């Protein structure tokens, strides 16, 4: 049994979807992934350019503080770099990257459980009292409400919503990234949406209004 949740790169090939699909690998074909695994600088640069905003977006939506998010993004890319030594090119790249980012988040939440609870508590408080302009850009009251609603979800449910809705991962990829079953990923997505629907119902169009 695992005693510490300190794993970084997923075990080679473990539960990761095999890739035959460039869409699940940021457009990297097998030859490019093989070059990447060998540490080819051109492919590394390409991967970084394609993945940086995605990983940052995922982590920044999962944690409340942008500075913490930046630290976690750096941790993620350090682990990605180290993990390339054991990355198997036949496996899809996108879930592999998000698995590492999810592991970084999991370690962060485990180490700072109380901080995570503080984030979850945002829903019970008016959001604008917690917001510092430098921390996060909110474009509207609806954005603030959406963030507060997302913060009420559990870490796992939040991760599923972010990976599915914002990053466009399939349930297979989400299951691999979060080490859960495909059915669980789907259930958490459906339940997460239901909770968000309740929390954000005031923004739903009234009867008779165009949606």
């Amino acid at each position: 049994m695992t005693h510490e949740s300190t794993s970084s790169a997923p075990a080679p090939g473990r539960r990761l979807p095999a890739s035959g699909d460039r869409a699940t690998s940021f457009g990297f074909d097998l030859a490019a992934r093989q070059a990447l695994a060998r540490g080819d600088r051109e492919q590394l640069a390409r991967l970084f350019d394609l993945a940086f905003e995605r990983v940052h977006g995922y982590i920044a939506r999962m944690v409340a503080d942008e500075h913490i998010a930046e630290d976690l993004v750096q941790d993620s890319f350090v682990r990605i770099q180290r993990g390339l030594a054991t990355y198997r090119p036949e496996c899809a790249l996108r879930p592999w990257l998000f698995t590492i980012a999810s592991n970084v988040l999991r370690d962060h939440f485990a180490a700072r459980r109380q901080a995570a609870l503080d984030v979850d508590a945002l829903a019970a408080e008016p959001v604008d009292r917690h917001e510092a302009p430098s921390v996060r850009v909110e474009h509207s009251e609806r954005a603030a409400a959406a963030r507060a609603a997302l913060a009420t979800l559990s870490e796992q449910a939040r991760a599923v919503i972010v990976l599915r809705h914002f990053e466009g991962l399939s349930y297979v990829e989400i299951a691999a990234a979060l080490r859960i079953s495909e059915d669980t990923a789907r259930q958490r997505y459906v339940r997460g949406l239901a909770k968000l629907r309740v929390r954000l119902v005031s923004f739903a169009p009234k009867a008779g209004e165009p949606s």
Partner: protein
Amino acid sequence: MNHPPSDEHEPRPEPHPEPWLADALDELRPAAPRAELRASLRARFVGGDAPAGQEHTEPSAASPRAPRSPRTQRPASVGPTARWRAIALATLAAAIAAFVFLRSAPPPRVELVASEASDVTLDGAPVALDELEERLLAGATVRNAANAVRLRLDDVALVELAPHTELTLRPWGPGGDGEARLELRRGGVRVVTAPTFAPRRLTVAAPHAEVAVVGTEFGVDVVEGSGTCVCCTHGRVAVRALGRESVEQLAAGEMAFCFSSRAEPMRGPVKDDHSAAVIALRRFEWPAAKAPR
């Protein structure tokens, strides 16, 4: 708006947020990452130097880390023969060190404390006090009746068996090497570790969950026909419910109930009556220089 892709081989209808909900979520845009962060991280990730004027100066975790894979950093002067020789020497040294350590390492010990031998049976039969330790270490199954029983492992872990408990001890090796397991079949155990516990490893294997000790205090109770309750009162424990791959990390004050149905474990705060039994063990007086937590 981002529309999640449809999965192949998924016959069920794809759940989508309504347009108004999707619009609300899509407004949730994080602040753009700082350009300096991106540039410096990219430079290190790709393996080159940071661009001029953009050296990373934050005390982040990235600064002390290797910029590129070991393959590209290997000194050219170290050839395969020298490398294999070094590996062979290191392996030999490690083997000798392990041999010396294991020869000198004390064997595991288990003692009955604050209890009587008459409180327990081993493999269903009464046992004399002088043979209790040997048989416990040999893997005999312990049962107790209405009295709680306390066992001390190597002066670093105190295990209290709740009334009507049945378990088997699989001890760690000499010097605390390897992992000790408490195979709990019924009843409950409360575990408190001494500050000197690390780096030992101890796992409680209950019918519906496995609980790994990470230097802590916790209790595990089997609820017949329902599941296994794990309560952590200090430090952390890692819990893996039966049939599930995910590991739940419990911090102090948290509990997880692992259902016999293999449903997702339920988490919540530790109940007072559960924590009281564990916290009571803090009064245990460890041998000199091994104060309790």
